[in-house]
């Protein structure tokens, strides 16, 4: 198939369907409405289910239900709606149900604005609900990558029985870029047999399914948590991804993810025109985070700058990676404001002590 | 008998007043757009206005003042 011009949101929806997702439960919220809208058109065509839930809470719990039956299920929302899903995501994690959750982040706090933001980094990477489970968080930077990572998300979710969060912002959600689905080659993972699922077609051939996160005995609860931690260690070993951009000869490291990294590319181009050798590491998996790559890079640069569309959240991960070797500087815009290449260039100069 | 004033800053040219005026004496401007790009409502024939306030009751933008 040829390339088609698609919005990020539409590409995510189409990619989900191509990944075999047949159950989508959503609730409208800008700037991700094209996902449910696309699903409402397409799902009937592929024999799948689109259902507009009465709320984000209902939607995430419907995902829990369908996912617990062994089906590939998904929901999408944006910041306030994702806050409402926190309890449900925690239940999904606790019950080890695979699920994919898309967050096209807007600016906040509160109702804020629908303009682009990366303000939900901490929420996504640190605390998807109570319970302290770290989940997998993917941060695409282009529409093509949004499609690709969506397909990856379903593989990862099934392979490890973990909720996977795809995080983007209004820019990636609303912009159109060419997408070539045929070019997507996702790594096939070993997906364990779903004999834990409440699938009536396999009744009798498996133990009784109990999709559950309630443990009366803390010993059992701890064991379940430890097995989560163990699983997540494997995820951290096998699934970390990042992209390097002009890092070979760099003196100044920028760390940025998602659309912000696109603006940083422009800033890097401008920097290099001025003879400043800037380069970038772009975490693709925000969780697990590419600590190692950044640590290694930090050894050979003069400055590290983290650029985000928030007040400085990923900067903590970068600091944890750099571990005191260098000061990590931060530049960010918040509230839906988008940093300009010029601002970022200035920040690189300031961080690196260049004039 | 009646007098209607249009606050053009508020008017969005929705046409509701035009339609609901029993005297048919309102129209949307055919020549002007306001700052927001809308053709404001205009009174064609103030003489006939009864001050019945139908227009103002239907105006979503409180753009009309009626005197009598």
């Amino acid at each position: 198939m040829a390339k088609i011009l698609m919005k990020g949101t539409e590409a995510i929806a189409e990619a989900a369907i191509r990944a075999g997702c047949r159950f989508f439960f959503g609730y409208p919220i800008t700037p991700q409405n094209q996902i449910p809208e696309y699903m409402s058109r397409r799902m009937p065509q592929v024999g799948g289910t689109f259902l507009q839930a009465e709320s984000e809470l209902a939607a995430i719990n419907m995902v829990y239900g369908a996912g617990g039956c062994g089906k590939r299920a998904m929901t999408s929302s944006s910041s306030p709606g994702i806050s409402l899903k926190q309890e449900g995501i925690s239940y999904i994690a606790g019950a080890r149900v695979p699920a994919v959750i898309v967050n096209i982040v807007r600016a906040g706090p509160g109702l804020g604005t629908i303009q682009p933001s990366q303000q939900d980094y901490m929420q996504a990477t640190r605390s998807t609900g109570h319970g302290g489970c770290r989940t997998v968080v993917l941060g695409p930077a282009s529409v093509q990558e949004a499609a690709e990572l969506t397909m990856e998300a379903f593989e990862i979710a099934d392979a490890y029985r973990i909720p996977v969060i795809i995080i983007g912002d209004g820019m990636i959600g609303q912009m159109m870029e060419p997408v070539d689905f045929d070019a997507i080659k996702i790594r096939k993972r070993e997906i364990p047999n779903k004999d834990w699922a409440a699938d009536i077609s396999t009744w009798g051939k498996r133990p009784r399914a109990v999709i559950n996160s309630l443990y009366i005995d803390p010993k059992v609860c701890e064991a379940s948590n430890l097995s989560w931690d163990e699983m997540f260690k494997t995820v951290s070993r096998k699934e970390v991804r990042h992209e390097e951009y002009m890092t070979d000869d760099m003196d100044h490291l920028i760390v940025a993810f998602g659309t912000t990294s696109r603006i940083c590319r422009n800033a890097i181009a401008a920097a290099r025109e001025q003879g400043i050798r800037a380069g970038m590491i772009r975490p693709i998996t925000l969780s697990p985070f590419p600590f190692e790559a950044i640590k290694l890079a930090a050894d050979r640069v003069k400055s590290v700058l983290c650029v985000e569309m928030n007040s400085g959240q990923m900067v903590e991960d970068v600091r944890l990676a750099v571990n005191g070797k260098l000061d990590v500087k931060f530049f960010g815009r918040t509230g839906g404001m988008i940093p300009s290449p010029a601002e970022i260039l200035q920040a690189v100069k300031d961080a690196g002590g260049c004039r | 008998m009646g007098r209607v004033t249009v606050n053009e800053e508020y008017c969005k040219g929705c046409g509701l007043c035009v339609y609901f005026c029993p005297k048919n004496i309102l129209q949307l401007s055919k020549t002007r757009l306001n700052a927001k790009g809308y053709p404001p409502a205009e009174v064609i024939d103030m003489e006939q206005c009864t001050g019945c306030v139908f227009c103002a009751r239907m105006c979503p933008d409180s753009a009309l003042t009626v005197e009598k």
Partner: protein
Amino acid sequence: MENRILFAGFGGQGVLSMGMLLAYAGMLEGKNVSWLPSYGPEMRGGTANCSVIISDTTVGSPLVMEPMALIAMNGPSLDKFEQTVVDGGLLIINSNIVDRKAQREDLRVHYVPANELALKAGNIKAANMVMLGAYLKNTRLVSIESVMGSFINVFGKDKERFIPMNREALKLGMESV
């Protein structure tokens, strides 16, 4: 070479689809492209714009903050964006709606009576095509064929019958500058 274009006007003037046509055409010609609309409640307020990038290399920021060309369909857009155009950039103004002249003197400015020409082509709604034509004449960034080849993709199969009229509007736009 990265071409950064900003299309701006009232909602309903076809600003978004005009940009989308250009992006689509760029893609058909094998270029890297991106299209980014303004979105949100301000659209209800009446204005809309979109950033289009057509590039030989990978597209960086999809947001056009300093356009190389500004297509201004109405006054507020001209007011808002004129100063952001790069030095010596291109500015195309819909002179049927905008009643002022450009303030900057370093720009290449064209005044296109887009509504008029669109009416001439058959429908005032094609004013956006007129403007796009004017832009293409200036830059030759993509071919008319690519633009018209994108039409169905952007507007849908059921708008096919409008192709000739839109082609005419595009042509009138090209001729106008």
